[in-house]
């Protein structure tokens, strides 16, 4: 059995020691650190990305909150604006109504004054005409014209009596 040939032992142990130490040094100094670095870098990258995703999520949530706050504020503003506008409109309407009422009243007064003047004028002209008619009738009947004042006075008295 070749395994029991003691003469080969020194050579086998000698080369085992050399090759094993060489391999150990290569593993210890080069390969293990290299692989460990690669694994660590990957782990770090993954956790970094997870952290960043978390940050972005938080940012997005904050943005949504801010947006909602702005929306609520805008809504409140709009409501006050609408209320203000309707109040202003209402006020204006009242003002206009008041103005219109004033104008109408003035016009009514003017019209009434005009009507009164016209009535007065008409009464005046009727009196004149009645006085002339009375003079002319008296002249025909009596053959004599009454004095200018008498007829007029008489007509006035009649108008006054009739209302």
């Amino acid at each position, binding site marked *: *059995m*070749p*395994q*029991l*040939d003691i*003469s*080969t*032992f*020194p*050579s*086998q*142990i*000698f*080369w*085992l*020691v050399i*090759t*094993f130490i*060489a*391999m*150990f040094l*290569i*593993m*210890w100094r*080069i*390969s*293990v650190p*290299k*692989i*460990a*670095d*690669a*694994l660590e*870098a*990957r782990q770090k*990258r993954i956790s970094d990305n997870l952290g960043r995703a978390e940050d972005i999520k938080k940012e997005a949530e904050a943005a949504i909150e801010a947006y909602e706050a702005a929306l609520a504020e805008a809504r409140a503003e709009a409501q006050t604006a609408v209320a203000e506008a309707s109040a202003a409109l209402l006020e204006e309407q009242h003002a206009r109504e008041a103005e219109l009422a004033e104008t109408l009243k003035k016009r009514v007064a003017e019209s009434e004054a005009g009507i009164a003047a016209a009535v007065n004028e008409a009464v005046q002209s009727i009196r004149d005409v009645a006085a002339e008619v009375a003079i002319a009738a008296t002249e025909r009947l009596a053959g004599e014209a009454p004095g200018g004042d008498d007829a007029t006075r008489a007509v006035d008295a009649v108008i006054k009596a009739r209302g």
Partner: protein
Amino acid sequence: MAAGQSPLAQFEIKTLIPMQLGNIDVSFTNSSTFMVLTVLTTSLFLILGMRRSQLVPGRWQSMAELSYIFIANLVRDTVGSQGRPYFPFIFTIFMFVLVGNMWGMIPYSFTFTSHIVVTFAMAGVIFVGVTIIGIVKHKLHFLTIFMPPGVPMYMAPLLIPIEIISYLSRPISLSVRLFANMLAGHTLLKVFAGFVISLGIAAGWLPLLFIVALTGLEIVIAFLQAFVFAILTCLYLNDALHLH
């Protein structure tokens, strides 16, 4: 292989370059060749695989990382965080034995782990190293490793010798396990290869099929024995660091 040649002929050490160190013969042999090949292939596999270290690893880088993670998990699970400083050594042991066994699976190659002197030298270094670590860490308290806690004192005269024997037999069991597995597997392959020749075309395909199946099994064993070697190293280290 010619029929009639011993199945053990494959384990012969053949001197390739004669060398002397004083009176000692340290010739470069076929065994040395495969040790050097093991160092070269393992180093190239790991260094070239990690040459362009990428965030998303390719196949080669994945394999290199996987071998690292495999042993890192093994050390963490059996020894714990205190085993971290010893990781490069255990990783080297595992890769050295694994790649050496795998080189041996190639026909006409040589399996240096099939020699008891090689496996015993490795097991001896592990045994001595682990014992030194234990003594340095625990001083005289290390001797309690031979007296498990919670055992009544009157059992001590019986138990301590048993524990000492079991402790001292560790390097033997560790080295013989690997050596015997490699020896038996390769011998069996060679014996059945001899049957193929002697049975000829008529019935020779039967042992040939068996060889094919056995080669698959041997590859599994080659991996398994490297794993067992590494895990036992971890367990011994754990005992030395934590005393049971």
